[in-house]
């Protein structure tokens, strides 16, 4: 069945270093992926989503590229900021009524 895997439960980085959060998926159909971000005591909200035409989505300095060959949609940022500390979810849009299949989340902590 369809699934999303986020291998890192916790990532701790120093401010200014690059960020990469891993997301791999298994999809029966043509994949459509999302990254959601949840800051402390807030609701999850959409950070970015994959395109169907090989464009690279970007938002707030974050970007992600859908690689169908490796079934991945890793989230990247060139230089981490303290405000990037949050919980990040990768999600796959399933075929059944477009339900979202969620990864288990990666908590990102950025230290000064």
């Amino acid at each position, binding site marked *: 069945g369809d699934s999303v895997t986020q291998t890192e*439960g916790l990532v701790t980085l120093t401010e200014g270093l690059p960020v990469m959060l891993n997301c791999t998926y298994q999809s029966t159909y043509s994949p459509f992926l999302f990254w959601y971000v949840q800051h402390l005591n*807030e*609701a999850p909200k959409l950070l970015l989503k994959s395109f169907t035409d090989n464009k690279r989505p970007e938002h707030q300095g974050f970007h992600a590229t859908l690689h169908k060959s490796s079934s991945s949609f890793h989230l990247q940022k060139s230089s981490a900021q303290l405000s990037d500390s949050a919980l990040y*979810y990768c999600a796959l*849009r399933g075929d059944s*009524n*477009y*339900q979202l299949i969620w990864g*288990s*989340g990666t908590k990102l902590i950025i230290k000064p």
Partner: protein
Amino acid sequence: EAAVTQSPRNKVTVTGGNVTLSCRQTNSHNYMYWYRQDTGHGLRLIHYSYGAGNLQIGDVPDGYKATRTTQEDFFLLLELASPSQTSLYFCASRQGPSEVFFGKGTRLTVV
């Protein structure tokens, strides 16, 4: 901006108690969801609905009932609350294949 409002924001109940969590969306979205969020488990789908009167079972439905009374309103019912249901509950809504919008969450504690 899409709006999803949950109430109450915090709730404490006793084991065996009866709890109703409320959610209202003003987005005219068809789909509404109830999730629970627990450390180490991420977001887990309890129940969802694609319209008034419709109810679909999610991945972790045991111990929960839900009811979609109108396009706007979706309720989650715990009729015999247990400590294992202590969690942060999110309601969300969506229209078609587009973005999911979440409410601010209800923190439920069962003592």
